[in-house]
């Protein structure tokens, strides 16, 4: 009996001890580069599996007017504070130009008025934040695909990089500047638009005026606000942290479909 008792105590003690070790060990493992690489391998699997399930053109659900959230949380930057942006905003973005360059055949600049003359798409979709919350809004804008058809792509172009006006983290080297990137599958998806209207009104500064990306099959941090320039690249490894986006450089997945 006493032998059983000590054995039981040993087992329970051992289990508790092991879990405590596991827990503090997790922090150590979390900082180990090899472990990080193994954990990251799941991202590739997720991208492949989702693309297989989706095909190129599966659409994100579109809702009706009555489904729109009563309030839509402003997240990330609420107002870029650079002199350049403030000046643009004061002029109602009439001086703002969207540059499209990089690996394109015909680099172009578009004013907000130019964009508004192009055929527009309106979609009521759910915005999913990586933190877990969701909000439904109505977005109107130009399909990114139609702009890329105007500029043409060089064969080496693989990613669309969106350079933004907001600096989410203040750093000396400017690496706190917001940027994002998507691949051509998402760039040419019918619901991928550059939105200049939200819920029937011009985009507010909080939600990314004058132009923001909607890439509806991915999470909120991919929906770059305050877009100034679109650059086509063959690889994003040379940009800032090399991971393809502001949050990607801070540990988040480049593919944000989950």
């Amino acid at each position, binding site marked *: 009996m006493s032998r059983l008792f000590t*054995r039981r105590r040993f087992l329970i003690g051992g289990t508790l001890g092991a879990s405590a070790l596991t827990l503090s060990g997790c*922090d150590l493992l*979390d900082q180990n580069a090899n472990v990080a690489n193994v954990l*990251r391998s799941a991202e590739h699997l*997720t991208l492949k599996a989702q693309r297989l399930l989706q095909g190129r053109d599966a659409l994100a*659900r579109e809702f009706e007017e009555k489904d729109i959230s009563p309030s839509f949380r402003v997240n990330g930057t609420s107002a870029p504070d650079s002199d350049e942006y403030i000046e643009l905003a004061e002029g109602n973005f009439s001086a703002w130009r969207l540059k499209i360059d990089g690996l394109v055949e015909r680099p172009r600049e578009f004013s907000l008025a130019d964009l508004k003359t192009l055929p527009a798409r309106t979609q009521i979709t759910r915005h999913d934040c*990586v933190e877990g919350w969701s909000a439904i809004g109505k977005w109107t804008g130009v399909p990114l695909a139609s702009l890329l058809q105007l500029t043409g792509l060089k064969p080496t172009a693989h990613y669309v990089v969106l350079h933004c006006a907001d600096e989410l983290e203040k750093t000396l080297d400017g690496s706190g500047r917001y940027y994002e990137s998507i691949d051509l599958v998402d760039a040419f998806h019918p619901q991928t638009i550059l939105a200049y209207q939200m819920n029937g009104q011009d985009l507010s500064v909080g939600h990314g005026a004058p132009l923001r990306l909607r890439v509806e*099959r991915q999470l909120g941090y991919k929906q770059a606000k305050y877009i100034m320039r679109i650059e086509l690249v063959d690889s994003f490894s040379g940009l800032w942290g090399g991971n393809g986006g502001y949050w990607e450089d801070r540990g988040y997945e480049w593919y944000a479909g989950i």
Partner: protein
Amino acid sequence: MSANASNDNVEYPRTIFIRRHSVVTRLTHWLNVFCLSFLLLSGLQIFNAHPELYWGHYGANGDPAVLTIGSDDDGGTPSGFVRVARLQIPTTGVLGVSNVDGEPTARAFPSWATVPSFQDLAAGRRWHFFFAWLFVSNGILYLGFSLLSGHFRRDLAPKVHELSPRHLGREVLDHARLRFPGGEKARHYNALQKLTYLAVIVLLLPLMVLTGLTMSPGVDAALPSLVDIFGGRQSARTIHFITASALVIFVIVHVAMVILSGTWNNIRSMITGRYAIQEKGPRS
């Protein structure tokens, strides 16, 4: 009068060993323990990024919440609470506010319950999705094996007579009195075990996977009916949390039963497969 003649009628207690769990069951069981531990702890890390649950398609700060784990900071000392609908329960020290490096800090689940221990959503997600893939692969291996080998039919499907209210009632009473089956009856799972394991295997664990997938905007585009089944992404998130809580309760009861009904015998049977049964029979 020979000794042998009288001994033939006497039954002697003896211990026999049976093979209780197949190697696949044992392997997948422990891999499952490993995966679910990391999924739970990294899941709580992810929950901490937005410690509020909603119902329906949307939900964010200010929308009506089903559950909130939060903190108040009026008067200098922060206090933690859990709010379910309109009921608010103080939980300072564990939920809402807990110590980080000796300082009371606002965080939904305490650092000892999250992976990593410090606030890091990106890392929590990496752990979570890695182990989610491992968990699903392991689950498919187990389900495939159990269907093909007859494990489900033979060991887990309750017999018709076991489902009578009278039989179930007696098993509940026996469990409550901590009287566990011995001898011949210990060769098989009892009806409560069968029903509980089946509920976990075919209901709770698949529900975890499906509600988890429903939170993914990519999966929702591919399989829109998932969103309809759960009534929205935020409902799916709430069901994910409730189902995880149900699994935690299952594990607590399961481990308690393992300990109470013969700790070492149970654990050995899940490691080596050998399970000891006390029975009476002629001396062999």
